[in-house]
């Protein structure tokens, strides 16, 4: 099924108003993205400052998953949100 983005970009729906291009979207989102990144950095700093912080940041399975997620964010390709969801998903088999 066609997504809405495709339908709208086709220009067939005359009632739609202007939709932003990538550069405009980045301009609109940049400050919030920057803020979210800083937020994560501060979260990691806070954990690092706490008792056993170094050890947790180095080897805790949750942090390991976060590192994988950060690598994914920096990679090429589409579907980052879906791939990131899978990093945080339990992939063990169902109960018998």
């Amino acid at each position, binding site marked *: *099924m*066609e*997504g*809405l*983005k495709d*339908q*709208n970009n086709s220009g067939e*729906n005359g*009632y*739609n*108003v*202007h*939709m*932003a291009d990538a550069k405009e979207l980045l301009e609109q989102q940049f400050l919030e993205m920057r803020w979210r990144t800083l937020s994560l950095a501060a979260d990691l700093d806070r954990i690092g400052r706490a008792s056993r912080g170094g050890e947790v940041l180095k080897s805790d399975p949750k942090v390991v998953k976060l590192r994988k997620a950060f690598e994914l964010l920096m990679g090429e390709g589409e*579907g980052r*949100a*879906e791939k990131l*969801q*899978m990093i*945080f*998903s*339990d*992939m*063990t088999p*169902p*109960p*018998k």
Partner: protein
Amino acid sequence: MGGPPMSHEMKFIDPHIHCVSRTTDDYLFMARAGVVAVSEPAFWAGYDRSSASSFADYFRHLMEVEPKRAARYGIDQYCWLCINAKEAEDVALSREVIKLIPPLLDHPLVLGVGEIGLNKNTRNEITVFEEQVEVAAKYNQLILIHTPHLEDKHKGTSIITSILKNDKRIKPERVLIDHCEEHTIRMARDNGFWAGLTIYPVSKITPARGTDILEAFGPEMICVNSASDWGESSPSMLVDTALEFRRRGHSEKELEHIFYGNPCRFFGQSGKWKLKAEA
């Protein structure tokens, strides 16, 4: 925020909200925002109930008390009955509760069985889920599905869709798989089920991500909801998502299709839902 405003006549339906845990201020907000109808699935109260009689009272609350509260604000209120996935870990209690349900299914405001599903994907939860699917199949009811949260969501959604697909009595278009996210919506839609998107201020899909999913997957067979309950959640999430959708340049016609028409199309299959999707 820029972008075109929404018409003051825009109508919304919140297809999944737990009004028993919301204040009258929330009803007032919904009425002002254009919410004209809601559907309220049976869910976990925030604590495990001690007996089936507690559920009997809860069902009466859903069928009789809450619709009267909603009506004061001009909102139509419907509900769903079940034992939720979390309390389903107690199989004996669950079976007592399940016995209460069939005699209530003819009530004019009961749309079907829900929200049934899984929480931690345990064997007991699966057993109780299958027994409630049996009730829905036997009495030809619509089904509203709760999928687990966070790391359990993908596995739980996979188990649920497998069970439903293997039961030939279940028509996928009469099932709404709720709390879908980026990694589970295909499991619902590609198998012919309706998909629900739950928009939360924290921990679940945000209005921006919800709009991303609507853009990527198109408007068909998706219901957007707030699933507002006793936790950090808000009825405004429904309208905030509509605003984000409109801000990105989508038309009011598309907005109406998703936020009003789709719930009417799914719930309309019950024969009890009164509102009609506009052409």
